[in-house]
C-alpha cells in the first residue's frame, strides 16, 4: 500500500518554518498568488488572523478564506539589530503589527526605511518571495 502523501506546504513559510503540516496550508497557495489571507467562521462570522481551521465558538462549523485587502494602521514595531539563530542574514529587519480594525496582522516590515516608520501610519500587507524560494508577507507604505 502506498504511504499517504503528506501535505507539507507550510514548510515554505518564512525564513525558517517550524511547522510543516497544518489544516490551513492553503495560506501558502494564497501567498503564491500574491495574496495574504485569513479565515472567517461560516456560521458566526468571526474573522481570524492568523487563519485557523476551527472556530472556537462554533466547533465543527466550516471556516472560509478571505483575502486581506486595504490598509491597516501600524500598531507597533521594532527594528532588530540582533537575531535568533537562523535569521542572522536577514539583519537588520523590523517586525510589526498592523491593525485592520476587525483583525490585526503580525509580520515584517518590507522596503520601508526604518526612519520613515511611525505608529499609526497606513500600511498594506504584501506577499513576498524570499531568497531560496520560501514565502512570507511584508508591510509596505500604503
Amino acid at each position, binding site marked *: 500500500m502506498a504511504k499517504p502523501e503528506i501535505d507539507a506546504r*507550510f514548510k515554505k*513559510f*518564512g*525564513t*525558517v*518554518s*517550524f*511547522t510543516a503540516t*497544518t489544516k490551513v496550508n492553503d495560506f501558502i497557495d494564497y501567498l503564491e498568488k500574491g495574496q495574504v489571507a485569513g479565515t472567517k467562521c461560516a456560521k458566526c462570522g468571526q474573522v481570524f*488572523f*492568523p487563519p485557523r481551521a476551527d472556530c472556537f465558538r462554533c466547533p465543527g462549523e466550516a471556516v472560509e478564506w478571505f483575502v486581506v485587502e486595504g490598509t491597516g494602521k501600524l*500598531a*507597533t*514595531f*521594532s*527594528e*532588530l*539589530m*540582533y*537575531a*535568533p*539563530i*537562523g*535569521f*542572522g542574514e*536577514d539583519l537588520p*529587519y523590523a*517586525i*510589526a*503589527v498592523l491593525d485592520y480594525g476587525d*483583525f*490585526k*496582522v*503580525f*509580520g*515584517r516590515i518590507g522596503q520601508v526605511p*526604518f526612519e520613515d516608520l511611525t*505608529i499609526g501610519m497606513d500600511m498594506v500587507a504584501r506577499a513576498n518571495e524570499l531568497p531560496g524560494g520560501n514565502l*512570507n508577507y511584508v508591510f509596505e507604505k500604503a
Partner: protein
Amino acid sequence: MPKVAVIGVGQSAFVRGYPGSIRELAFDAYAEAMADAKAQNSDIGATVICSSPEYDKQRSPAGVIAEYCGLNPQPTFYVETLCSSSSTGLKLAYSLVASGLHESVMVLGFQKMSEISSAESQERMGRGADIQWESPFGTMMPAYYAMHAKAYLNQFGASEEDLALIRVKAATYGQINEKAVYRKPVELQQCLDADPVSKPLKVMDCCANADGSSCVIVASEKRAKEMGIKKPVWILGIGAASMPINMSCREKFHGLAVAEEAARQAYKMAGLGPKDINVAEVHDCFTIAEMMAYENLGFADPGQGPALIRAKETYKEGSIPVNVDGGLLSKGHPIGATGGSQVRTVVLQLRDEAGAMQVKDPQFGLVHNIGGVGLYGNVTIFGR
C-alpha cells in the same frame, strides 16, 4: 479556604556557567530551603519541579531531581509556563495543600541556560511565542518587549531615559545582592549609550541569562505549627491568567492585560489593593516590563510609571519599593527559577531577614511573574 504558609525558601547563586549538572544546581536551592525550614525529607509530601524545556537535554527532569534530593517515593511532577514556571508551581503547591491532599509541598525551579549559546537561547525563547505564525519572521523576546516599549513610549510620551532609570535602580540593588549575576553599578548615560538589541531596547534594558535554582516550601497551618515554624509567611492572594499567544490577537501593546487580570484576582482574594503593598518583586526581564508592571499592578495610573521611577518611589525608601534585590535585570533570569527567587525575596522581606535590602517593617508583599510575552500572568500576595 484553609491557610497556606511559606515555611522555607532557598536560592542558588545566579551565575554564568554553573560548574555542575541540573540535579546539582537544583540541589543548591533545595538544601538552602530545607535548612531554612529546618525540615527533613519526610516532612515533604510532594515536589513540583519547574523549568522551561530545551535548555538542557534531560526529559522529564522531575524524576532526576526528586531522586537526587532523596525525595522518593513522594509524588513529583513537572510544571512549565516559560519564565513563570515556578509561580505556576507555587499555585499548584498552594492548591495541593489547600485541598488537604498534602500537608507540605516543595516547589523547586531551575534553569541551566549556559548549556547553549546566546543566539540559540534567543531562538528557544522566541519559540515560546507562536511558532507557526510568528517565529518564521525571526522573533525573539527582546523584540517582542521592544514592540511594547515602542507602543508605550508612543502612547504616553515617555522616553528611553525613563526606561534607563529602571536599570539604574536595579543595579543599585544588584550590588548588594550576593546572589546576583550582575553586581556592577550602572550609570544612566551608560544605559543610553549601550548598543541597540531591538529598538528602542538596548543591551542595558535587557536582563542577563543565568544559571540558577530556587526553592519554596509551603505547608498547611497545622504542619507549620507542628514543625515549629517561627515566622510563617502566608499566601493571601494568588492570581493567574493567560492571554492569546499571537501578538495579532492582543488588544493593546502599552501594557500587559495578563498582569492586570492576575492582579485583579490576587487583590480580590487577599482583600487588599495596590496601596496596601509594602514591597514588590516584579518581572523586569526588560526595563519596559517593570514600567508596565507599575501600571498593570495599580502602583501608578496608566502613563504615570515614569513619574514613579523619576521620584524614586520604587527605591527601598520610596512608597512602593520594587525589585530591591536587583530584579531580573541585575540578579539574572534563569527562567524556571525566577518566580521562586522573587518569592524568596518577598518572604525574607516579610520576615525582616533581607539584610542590606530590607524595607522598613513591611506587612504585605507582592510577586508579579510573567511567562512569555504577556502570555502567562501570575500575581501572588503574601502577608506576615
